[in-house]
């Protein structure tokens, strides 16, 4: 793709063009769901269970109805009468909208109160009296499988008689076992248990909606915090029975999603029911505690991993067993054919000949979820385990962690590479990325410094993560959400004066789509991104799409945009040929203009062509200049990178100080390097979070111990180190512009770089693994045990 020639400078691909959307954000003119005010609007609050597991004996709403301002109270029995007490989850389970006879996790929704003000709604919710009979609580997923464990889901005991949701396997078990048997005899086998804890995306804007039903037209409009408005509209239609063309979902500005805004939550459904019941618009907005405790969590994988290798440390086989805690309902947001998402990427960047993975998923008395928090469906868990295991293998065979990686990388000439678990990696050059990272950070010098410090009794560690991601779902025949195939779309209208409106099926939550997608069109048509407005998020106007998550916007929606723009250009060529009275084959394209080969001065700009499309169109063509593309990608894309982290550990406090963190990312073709840089900074911070701070912990009674930002520690500017970044470019061979997607790479790649650095600092005293989050207390306890603590 070239943007250099005689044509106008168009700020196409590779240009750090300032974000168009920031003009409204920095002026405070963004429009979030909670900014929406409608005449006569009511406000909602939800009565939630204090118990993690209990029977509901009775619900008394009489006092709540007497609270001044309260208009209605909806209970599970009311919903049951309307056939709406249960809703389908994205994983084929049924989730209670409002609990009818039992609650299965703390903060589960029990009643929905609507009132004239938010305050009256809260007072009304406090006045609802629920009589519970507590039941034994299952917090530990291992105990959920015990024969005497209480059955948490009697509602589906006919098809699922225990707390086990599924057992899933992939790979070749016999070949893997044989490779392990061989390694036990003649090579090495390393094993490690690790827990990737339950965390929460914690977007700054919590979830919420405004539901408005117009009885005269029969049209329901729902403004909601949605990462997938079209899919949500279809699900609303299926669940409610309302005709889909009379449902309009609008996802306005969204203040961060990270996967949290992919599922449908009970509050949305209740707001719709309340709007239908009261005939007035109803607004429901979560508070922080509700968001952290009841909406989609991420991770919660208990992993046992094993590598078989030869004595030199060349890997042969990978064997993984995982126990997945899905909480009370199986509401994991992932493509329906993949119960453990894309956990298959756990062979990572390494050339394993054999692999076998088994996952058991269970119910516990915890909030439902299992969403892909800034990762493409369990890729973070997979990448964490393989990068931790490669370090473990390096220790076992006495090699440097960099050396063991260089020795085992999939070689550049092996692409497209088919992994032992059956996935075809599109392109990669892992050695180049790691060598660049080592050079930039001064790896050899750091190792010398570490040795000197170790001799002086100081604790310094260097951690590497050479991750490979798998993003950009579809293709549609393999990937679907509730049966809807994961293509995506773009519709482009070129107006007579050459200005462009583009509407896309993906939806931004801060990623900068309005700029990035404008730049794709700018590059294809040779016009300024300023002349391209990008709209999204309104199901009445945007073409159907599956939404933004799993880093799929650029790989899928971006491809649709490039292809739609090329359709525009193809038609423009026909019009230009007509205007210039030459054959199409006699025309040359330069950004923004077709000209006659051999006579560069004789040409037509895209603006002139657009005007002609409406004023002087060739008689054999349809007037107008519009195009739409629904793009079904032929394969996923495989971004990768190599991160190196340097830590110092305080022997007095156990505190881990990140001295340096260098991230080399390769996301293929870069559209806007400034936006990519911003994505990497944010993603690295969200990768730092689970490494050192975040965990949604539960006590033995099922109380959530991370229900607010005092107890659930998200890193702020104070905790975040200065990120150093660098880049290699390995385009995707199957993407129209070679882009792979970048939003999630740093969240996927960063935690294990930090964990590996901490373990590296303590490896000389025999430490092989520390579960994240690596808190000062955990480190201090190890220092104490090893006689290294100075206090």
């Amino acid at each position: 793709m070239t943007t250099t020639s005689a044509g106008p400078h168009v700020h196409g691909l590779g240009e750090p063009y300032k974000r168009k959307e920031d003009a409204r954000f920095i002026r405070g003119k963004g429009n979030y769901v909670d900014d929406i005010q409608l005449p006569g609007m009511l406000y909602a609050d939800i009565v939630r269970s204090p118990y993690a597991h209990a029977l509901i004996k009775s619900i008394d709403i009489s006092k709540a109805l007497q609270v001044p301002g309260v208009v209605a109270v909806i209970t599970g029995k009311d919903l049951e009468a309307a056939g709406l007490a249960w809703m389908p989850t994205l994983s084929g389970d049924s989730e209670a909208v409002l609990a009818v006879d039992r609650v299965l996790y703390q903060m589960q929704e029990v009643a929905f109160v609507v009132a004239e003000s938010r305050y009256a709604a809260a007072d009304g919710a406090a006045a609802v009296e629920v009589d519970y009979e507590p039941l034994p609580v299952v917090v530990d997923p291992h105990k959920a499988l015990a024969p005497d464990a209480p059955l948490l889901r009697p509602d589906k005991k006919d098809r699922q008689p225990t707390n086990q949701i599924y057992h899933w396997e992939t790979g070749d078990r016999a070949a893997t076992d044989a490779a392990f048997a061989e390694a036990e005899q003649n090579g090495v086998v390393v094993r490690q248990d690790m827990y990737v804890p339950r965390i929460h995306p914690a977007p700054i804007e919590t979830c919420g909606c405004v539901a408005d039903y117009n009885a005269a037209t029969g049209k329901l409009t729902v403004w909601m915090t949605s990462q997938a408005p079209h899919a949500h509209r279809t699900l609303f239609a299926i669940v409610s029975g309302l005709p889909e063309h009379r449902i309009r979902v609008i996802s306005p500005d969204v203040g961060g999603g990270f996967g949290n805004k992919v599922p449908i939550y009970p509050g949305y459904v209740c707001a719709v029911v309340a709007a239908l019941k009261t005939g007035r618009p109803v607004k429901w907005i979560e508070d922080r505690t509700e968001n952290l405790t009841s909406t989609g969590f991420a991770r919660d994988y208990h992993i046992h991993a094993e590598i078989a290798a030869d004595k030199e440390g060349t890997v042969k086989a990978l064997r993984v067993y995982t126990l997945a805690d899905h909480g009370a309902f199986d509401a994991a947001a992932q493509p329906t054919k993949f119960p453990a998402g894309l956990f298959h990427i756990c062979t990572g960047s390494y050339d394993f000949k054999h692999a076998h993975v088994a996952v058991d998923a269970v119910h516990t008395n915890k909030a439902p979820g299992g969403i892909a928090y800034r990762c493409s469906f369990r890729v973070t868990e997979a990448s964490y385990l393989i990068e931790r295991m490669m370090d473990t293998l390096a220790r076992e065979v006495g090699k440097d962690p960099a050396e063991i990686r260089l020795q085992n990388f999939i070689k550049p000439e092996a692409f497209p590479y088919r992994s032992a678990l059956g996935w075809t990696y599109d392109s990669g050059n892992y050695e180049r990325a790691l060598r660049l990272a080592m050079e930039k950070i001064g790896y050899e010098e750091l190792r010398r410094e570490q040795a000197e410090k170790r001799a002086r009794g100081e604790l310094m560690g260097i951690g590497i993560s050479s991750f490979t991601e798998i993003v950009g779902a579809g293709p549609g025949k393999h990937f679907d959400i509730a049966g809807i195939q994961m293509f995506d779309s773009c519709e482009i209208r070129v107006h007579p004066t050459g200005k462009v409106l583009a509407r896309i099926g993906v939806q931004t939550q801060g990623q900068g789509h309005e700029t990035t997608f404008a730049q794709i069109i700018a590059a294809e048509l040779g016009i300024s991104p300023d002349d391209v407005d990008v709209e999204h998020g309104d199901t009445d106007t945007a073409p159907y799409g599956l939404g933004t998550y799993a880093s799929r916007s650029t790989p899928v929606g971006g491809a649709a945009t490039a292809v739609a723009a090329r359709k525009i250009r193809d038609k423009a060529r026909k019009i230009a040929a007509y205007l210039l009275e030459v054959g199409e084959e006699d025309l040359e394209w330069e950004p923004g203009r077709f000209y006659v080969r051999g006579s560069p001065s004789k040409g037509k700009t895209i603006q002139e062509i657009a005007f002609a499309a409406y004023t002087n169109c060739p008689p054999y063509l349809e007037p107008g200049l519009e195009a739409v593309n629904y793009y079904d990608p032929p394969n996923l894309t495989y971004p990768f990178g190599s991160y190196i982290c340097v830590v110092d550990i305080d022997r007095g406090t156990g505190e881990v100080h990140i001295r340096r963190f260098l991230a080399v990312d390769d996301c293929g073709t870069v559209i806007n390097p400034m936006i990519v840089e911003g994505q990497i900074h944010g993603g690295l911070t969200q990768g730092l979070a689970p490494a050192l701070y975040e965990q949604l912990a539960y006590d033995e009674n099922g109380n959530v111990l991370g229900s607010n930002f005092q107890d659930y520690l998200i890193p702020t500017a104070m905790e975040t180190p200065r990120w150093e970044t660098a880049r290699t470019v390995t385009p995707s061979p199957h993407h129209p512009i070679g882009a792979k997607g970048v939003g999630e790479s740093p969240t996927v790649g960063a935690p294990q770089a930090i964990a590996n650095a901490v373990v590296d600092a303590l490896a000389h005293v025999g430490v092989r693994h520390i579960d994240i989050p690596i808190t000062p207390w955990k480190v201090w306890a190890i220092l104490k045990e090893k006689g290294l603590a100075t206090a």
Partner: protein
Amino acid sequence: MDFSGSQTIAAPIDKVWAFLLDVNKVAECAPGFQSLEVLGEEHWKAVVSVGIGAVKAKFTLDVTRPEMHEPDHMVVKARGKAPGSAVELSGDMHLTAVDSNQTRMDWEAKVIVSGTIASVGARLLQGTAEKLTGQFFACLKTKLEPGGTSQS
């Protein structure tokens, strides 16, 4: 959470027992006590407000005494709720006469706290419970021991 303790009270065992038998007197010593209503034999409704860190909650408690063995053993159970929170308490108490004017009270309590108050106040629960227990026994001693305010 499980708690236990041992207190020596400078009062004869029958006087201590008589005090503990009188729910109104015990209630007066309960920190945050607001009201008590008789629901039936050995069955009361008590309203108590507690604060744990920044969270304040008014609990309505259903209180029973399922086991009584005069003059040395008593079991108290309570289940209560506040908006967004719930609590279950079980207390087991043994009295032993150390001598004619001294009584030792050995007690154990099991407390299960659920909901907002447990979630938000988790790190403060243990400390708060110990503080409230301390206040209760201080009050008890004031009322029972010589020089205290109680005349019974």
